[in-house]
């Protein structure tokens, strides 16, 4: 039986760091010292009386222990003498600023600290109430199904959406079967590969419609949008997804009558839960509106936002309802930042509504969304509201069998894609073509 030599703690830490890929100049520092002794007293480790009663008890400490009364302590003697009080020493001051040991500035001392808190929606926020909560926060009315302009692209046979079926099946097979040497690729591999292949298929249409080449994909860009909603300050911040920009904006999707009809719509609230639940509340923030791109960037109009849920573990991925809420919040954030860049920060009803599309997927289920920003006047609950069309839970295929399903020596399900639905890719392509065709 081979006996492994017990490696010391420093060698173990170096091995761990090397395994993580940091191979140059690994500085190992002593980790936390091993805790010996009983656990410290916190509200979760004690079962005593409530803190107020405890405070009263503490004041009745034995007189010997109250250092204020005792002037003779054993400080000078360097060891404890029974009968003398234990002195209270001042906390040790290093004398110089050590960046690895200094606690950093407190929130109240930071220059951007504000009394009024702000609720931030970032890419990790999972809303409890989902799309209904996002609708209240963005003052939006929901319409089920895709808008008429996208439906007309779908129904128009001249766009040749039928020929792509074989190519789409090849794309799915590439993502789900062929891209690995193991049995099946993990989701964090096949989700982006599928996305790239579908985008490639869409880009092939630019031979027919040259205006489609005036598009650009952008990753890892940060959006910042600030707005106020019924005396609550809200922000959308940070990395969100892959944005496809275009040189020309998408023309407004809803007619004037539909926009005026949103005045009667009442946004639903969910008492006793506040609409700002699950948002991160901060007191240190900057009220910023930034599209993420500088002025003079040729592809200045946001066209479509893609969200890829490519985490392997199921709890790390967003549920479909939470994903739709995230898509709505970030589509709104991009549209609002663009509106403020074009028309200024004053809240008003937009003459030219801004349309931003959004597609979210986890490699199998697709969520399609078209958002139209009609107004930046979001403080009150009345007036014109924004519009969103959502087509949710569209499966591209039922299952992708990597190994055949065999029951009692009979192949029940052979290898391959099962339950392929071409309509989902047609909607994907229609949203891609929307705005140019």
């Amino acid at each position, binding site marked *: 039986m081979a006996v492994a030599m017990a490696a010391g703690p420093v060698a173990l830490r170096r091995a761990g760091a090397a395994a993580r890929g940091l191979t140059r100049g690994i500085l190992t520092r002593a980790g936390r010292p091993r805790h010996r002794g009983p656990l410290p007293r916190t509200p979760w480790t004690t079962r005593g009386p409530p803190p107020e009663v405890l405070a009263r008890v503490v004041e009745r400490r034995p007189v010997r222990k109250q250092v204020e009364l005792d002037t003779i302590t054993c400080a000078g003697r360097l060891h404890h003498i029974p009968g003398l009080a234990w002195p209270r020493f001042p906390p040790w001051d290093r004398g110089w600023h050590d960046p690895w040991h200094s606690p950093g500035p407190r929130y109240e001392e930071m220059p951007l600290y504000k009394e009024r808190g702000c609720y931030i929606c970032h*890419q990790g926020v999972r809303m409890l109430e989902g799309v209904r909560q996002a609708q209240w926060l963005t003052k939006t009315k929901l319409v089920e199904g895709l808008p008429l302009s996208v439906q007309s692209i779908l129904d128009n046979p001249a766009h040749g959406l039928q020929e792509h079926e074989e190519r789409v099946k090849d794309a799915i097979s590439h993502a789900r079967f062929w891209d690995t040497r193991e049995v099946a690729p993990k989701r964090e591999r096949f989700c982006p590969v599928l996305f790239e292949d579908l985008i490639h298929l869409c880009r092939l249409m630019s031979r027919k419609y040259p205006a489609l080449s005036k598009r650009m994909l952008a990753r890892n860009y940060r959006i910042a949008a600030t707005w106020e909603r019924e005396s609550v300050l809200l922000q959308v911040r940070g990395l969100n997804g892959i944005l496809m920009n275009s040189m020309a904006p998408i023309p407004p999707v809803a007619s004037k009558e539909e926009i005026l009809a949103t005045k009667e719509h009442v946004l639903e609230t969910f008492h006793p839960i506040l609409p700002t639940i699950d948002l991160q509340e901060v007191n240190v923030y900057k009220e910023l509106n930034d599209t993420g791109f500088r002025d003079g960037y040729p592809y200045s109009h946001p066209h479509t936002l893609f969200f890829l849920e490519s985490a392997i573990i199921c709890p790390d991925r967003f549920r479909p309802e939470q994903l739709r809420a995230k898509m709505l919040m970030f589509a709104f954030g991009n549209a609002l930042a663009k509106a403020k860049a074009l028309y200024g920060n004053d809240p008003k009803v937009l003459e030219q509504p801004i349309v931003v599309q959004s597609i979210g997927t986890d490699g199998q289920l697709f969520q399609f969304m078209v958002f139209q920003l009609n107004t930046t006047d979001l403080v009150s609950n009345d007036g014109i509201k924004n519009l969103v069309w959502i087509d949710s839970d569209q499966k591209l295929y039922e299952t992708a069998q990597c190994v055949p399903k065999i029951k009692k020596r009979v192949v029940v399900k052979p290898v391959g894609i099962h339950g392929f639905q071409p309509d989902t890719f047609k909607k994907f392509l229609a949203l891609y073509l929307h705005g140019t065709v």
Partner: protein
Amino acid sequence: MAALGLCRAFGALLLSAAPRRARPPVLPPGPPPWLSGPVAAACRGLGGSAPRCTTDPLWKCRVKYTVRPIGMKKTGGRDHTGRIRVRGIGGGHKRRYRMIDFQRLRYEEGAPPEPFTEKVIKVRYDPCRSADIALVAGGNRKRWIVATENMQPGDIIKNSSHIGRMAVSANEGDAYPLGALPVGTLICNLESHPGKGAQYIRAAGTCGVLLRKVNGTAIVQLPSKRHMQVLETCVATVGRVSNVDHNKRVIGKAGRNRWLGKRPHTGLWHRKGGWAGRKIKPLPPMKSYVNLPRVRAAE
């Protein structure tokens, strides 16, 4: 130390469109390498899930409340010296601890001390106790509480500290002070001092009975038939604790007890002495948690 990581994260948020400058070398994404265990998990922030277990002996000392389950470290019945203090504990399935809020009347920060309602989001199994727990949301926060018998997702429950002249007709799952409840209600999650948090009647299927209310105090019968006198401002939940059939379950095999973390007893035969066998004793006297003046001692 944790604030340093947080400051860096906020600095990244603020510099979204700043002109490019020579930046200091950027750490790999994630918390800095010297942070370990729960501190690193706290700094991970966006999108990370909590670990399934931890080797950190201080996992219990987290001060900030969170809804996410915390990895536990099993003790095996050993105390801080390393010796077995309690026999028969060890092994068993890994568990994650969900921080339960036993103080029902905990107001949100910034909220006025008035009666408030909450909505039940889901009711689920808790590996750390026999009862089920419910995730409730109210205002801007979510918390776990011990679920009562008929709690379903979507219910609205009320928490109140107001004692009126008339007794309230309480619905199951609501939390009221004992002085506001009618005599004879079944209660659970009782606290002995106002504001301390529930420490009594928390096991699956148990309930206490409010026997009588006498000048500022209330007397409750616990599931062991013992009587307990507490101040009438102590808050209790109305109803029986969930998972009512818990005592009717059949373990079935020794392995199931091992999954629950119970190690076998010693097989050595001992002659049983006076401690063994059924005892029929009168009920112990009523336990009073009220500091009444000496003149009128508790009944």
